């Protein structure tokens, strides 16, 4: 079957190249049949990629170790869920997933636009085909996921234990879907530039794909943060690691793009800016994919040194050059149809929000690549740490939240100051009340940036709340509907608008969680023996007894051994028990003894925590195996040649020894206020984005009519 998979990739490469050639030829000569053929080649490519992916997936499920990839990333003892997901934990497999998602997305968008955008679509097909061809070339030429082993091992190395977390396994496909999704608007933007049809048609055709891509990328980033928080054993959710930054940059620029295309749709402005933004977004998405694979920057998450760094750089260079040449040569076609009427208008504030988002992305780009930049300038490699990022990103994030109320309230073209005051009076009053309450009842004054952030979030929420209330009240007056019904109808009839409001609410809530949990975090690292206790914040924590377990760990990760602790936590008059532990995975390293290999392989923290709306209590343990070292060494000498059931008894005795004579263990306890609101905010954003992206036939009809009206209006004013 490996041969069939390889063949799928090779045929796929030629199919993609054919799609490029056929659609370009068809577009140049105006022969529709070639354009259609090019588009169908993309459908075919999607089928081939899905086929290849299915073959690889089934090899993982069957634990067929004749595949090098399966032997490297899976094992018979890996639980089924992680067998399925181990495919994209490997370099080659993740490239295949990228290509498959790209082909599926491309097929879907080309199918949906097959009757519209007849001029632009062939060029978009060519761009998408070229991107797919690049990824297939990488696999066919350098990183073939279907490489087989001459000698088939009896057991595989297993999935890296750190990745054995549900959030981690869903996170990469989410990110890739986001990255891949941004290639769709990019392809159509290139098509629009090629054909000089630089109106808003390409934006309208791909808007929904952009929104879906943005949503997936955002969800992926958030799942990564959740994984970091609940699996990595350090208790944080964001560390400004190069790979994290790499996923955030395209998301930020994509966010800017989503806002500024509205200005082009409604006012015909910012055309150069929009095409530049989408080219930048796609380039950053490629850069993100590249950073994880190249090993040029030190990161905990990176794939190790790899062979495809140069190819990626060449491809990214080509994308940048093509975009720049096209944008510059088409400048005469990208003139604005209107001018900014007033600084007090929605478009002016959108522009401002765009600048802040792009500035934030640039700051992150600069910081991420600072090791390379400083080496080029001064000759020594220097790095900037998380404090630098925090210092620069915090003010920009505060400004972003401050601007987030604008979309809902300000009208296009211009607003009179009097009208603005009327709308903002109630939210301002509400914010003042919140500020007073925060100062009187909480310690919020200890951190000025958080206090400012809290106030801005309160302001944002009250502005959006007022908008929902006003809309629903108007509906009630007209129709006599009940409040919930009026709200639902209101949202359903104006999905884009109210979905957008919901997204803003979610972002506000998310920043509330970030501000509170980063400014008011309490943390302690202690070393305890059973019976001892310590306190952190208002929590008293007692180390009751150690635990040691063989097989069947709670998380279902397939770890053979786990050492942990039973902890009694007291908070006021509430008492609860937490059981943090640490999983030990056997290593296949032949230098280790037969018994010690079970204790000296990879180990991962299994954090235990109490989630709460007000705060989380987070607890991790790092057992000290010093007292076991001598018995393990002796067991290594005496039982290395024993049958495996005898070894199992030895290991079970060793774990019992840990339970009976426990050495002190190290604990990290964290009290993190409002951190749950980060995930809740994320869920609200997801909901809002779904509402905004969900197609509604009514809205489509209305959009066509309003467009027609707008054009009529423009022509009338010109006449």
């Amino acid at each position, binding site marked *: 079957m490996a041969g069939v998979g390889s063949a799928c990739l090779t045929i796929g490469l030629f199919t993609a190249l054919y799609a490029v050639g056929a659609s370009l030829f068809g577009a140049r000569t105006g022969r529709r049949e070639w354009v259609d053929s090019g588009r169908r080649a993309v459908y075919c490519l999607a089928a081939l990629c899905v086929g290849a992916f299915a073959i690889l997936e089934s090899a993982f499920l069957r634990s067929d170790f004749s595949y090098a990839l399966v032997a490297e990333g899976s094992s018979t003892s890996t639980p089924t869920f992680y067998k399925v997901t181990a495919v994209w934990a490997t370099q080659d497999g993740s490239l295949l997933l990228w290509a498959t998602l790209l082909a599926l997305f491309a097929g879907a968008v080309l199918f949906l636009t097959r009757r519209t955008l007849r001029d632009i679509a062939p060029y978009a097909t060519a761009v998408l085909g070229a991107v797919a061809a690049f990824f297939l070339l990488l696999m066919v030429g350098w990183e073939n996921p279907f490489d087989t082993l001459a000698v088939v091992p009896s057991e595989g190395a297993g999935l890296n234990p750190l990745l054995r977390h549900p959030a981690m396994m869903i996170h990469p496909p989410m990110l890739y879907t986001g990255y891949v999704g941004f290639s769709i608007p990019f392809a159509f933007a290139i098509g629009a530039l090629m054909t000089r049809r630089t109106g808003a048609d390409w934006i309208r055709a791909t808007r929904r794909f952009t929104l879906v891509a943005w949503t997936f990328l955002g969800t992926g980033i958030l799942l990564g943060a959740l994984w970091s928080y609940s699996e990595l054993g350090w208790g944080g959710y964001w560390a400004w690691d190069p790979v994290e930054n790499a996923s955030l940059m395209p998301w930020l620029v994509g966010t800017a793009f989503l806002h500024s295309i509205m200005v082009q749709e409604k006012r015909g402005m910012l055309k150069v800016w929009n095409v530049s933004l989408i080219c930048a977004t796609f380039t950053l998405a490629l850069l993100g994919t590249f950073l994880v694979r190249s090993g040029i920057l030190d990161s905990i998450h990176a794939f190790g040194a790899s062979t495809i760094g140069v190819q990626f750089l060449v491809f990214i260079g080509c994308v940048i050059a093509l975009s720049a040449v096209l944008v510059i040569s088409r400048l005469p076609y990208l003139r604005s149809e209107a001018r900014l009427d007033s600084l007090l208008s929605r478009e002016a504030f959108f522009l401002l929000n765009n600048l802040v988002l792009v500035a934030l992305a640039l700051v992150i780009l600069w910081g991420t690549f600072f090791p390379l930049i400083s080496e080029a300038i001064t000759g020594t490699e220097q790095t900037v740490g998380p404090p630098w990022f925090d210092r620069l990103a915090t003010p920009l994030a505060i400004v972003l939240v401050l601007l987030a109320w604008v979309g809902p309230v300000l009208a296009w073209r211009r607003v009179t100051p009097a009208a603005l005051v009327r709308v903002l009076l109630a939210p301002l009053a509400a914010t003042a009340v919140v500020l007073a309450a925060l100062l009187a009842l909480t310690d919020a004054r200890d951190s000025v940036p958080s206090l400012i952030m809290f106030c801005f979030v309160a302001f944002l929420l009250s502005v959006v709340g007022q908008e929902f209330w006003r809309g629903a009240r108007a509906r009630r007056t007209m129709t006599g509907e009940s409040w919930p019904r009026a709200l639902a109808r209101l949202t359903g009839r104006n999905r884009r608008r109210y979905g957008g409001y919901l997204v803003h609410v979610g972002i506000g809530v998310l920043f509330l969680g970030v501000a509170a949990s980063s400014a008011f975090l309490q943390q302690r690292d202690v070393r305890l023996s059973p019976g001892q206790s310590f306190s952190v914040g208002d929590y008293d924590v007692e180390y009751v007894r150690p635990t040691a377990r063989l097989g069947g760990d709670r998380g279902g990760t397939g770890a053979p051994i786990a050492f942990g602790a039973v902890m009694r936590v007291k908070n006021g008059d509430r008492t609860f028990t937490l059981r943090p532990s640490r999983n030990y995975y056997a290593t296949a390293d032949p230098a280790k003894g037969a018994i010690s290999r079970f204790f000296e392989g990879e180990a*991962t923290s299994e954090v235990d925590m109490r989630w709460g709306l007000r705060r989380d209590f987070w607890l991790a343990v790092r057992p000290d195996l010093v007292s076991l070292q001598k018995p393990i060494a002796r067991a290594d000498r005496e039982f290395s040649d024993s049958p495996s059931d005898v070894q199992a008894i030895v290991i079970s005795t060793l774990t019992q020894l840990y339970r009976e004579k426990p050495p002190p263990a190290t604990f990290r306890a964290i009290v993190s206020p409002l951190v749950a609101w980060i995930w809740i905010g994320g869920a609200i954003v997801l909901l809002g984005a779904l509402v905004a992206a969900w197609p509604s036939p009514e809205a489509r009809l209305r959009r066509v009519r309003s467009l027609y009206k707008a054009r009529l209006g423009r022509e009338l004013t010109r006449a």
Partner: protein
Amino acid sequence: MDPARKRKLRLVLALGVAVLLASALVYTSFSASSEAAKPSELQPGRAYELTGKVVHNSIRRDGEQLHFRVRDRDGTESVPVTYSGTVPDPFREGREVIVSGELERGTFVAERDSLVTKCPSKFTKDEQSS
């Protein structure tokens, strides 16, 4: 003011702000950064980001403190490190680490919680051979 001049003024203003922000970015990054160095390159009295591999059989725990040696990635020169705080899960002998701190009397005293372990085994094929 006529609209053309007003636009020009706005452009100059915007460019001025952009230049100002860019120079702030450059300045803060160079002043806040610490130099990355191998064990053989360390000089006393400066903050560094030390990169290298953990020497075999050098990890020792002493209460809250963790002691180990880091050697050049492709060399034998090494330096003792004292560290406290969270130890990342993949930390192990032979692994590549990054840790920030300063050289004091021949020992690299690391900042709390600054240890980062690279995780080569995750995706590379030749971990055993290295």
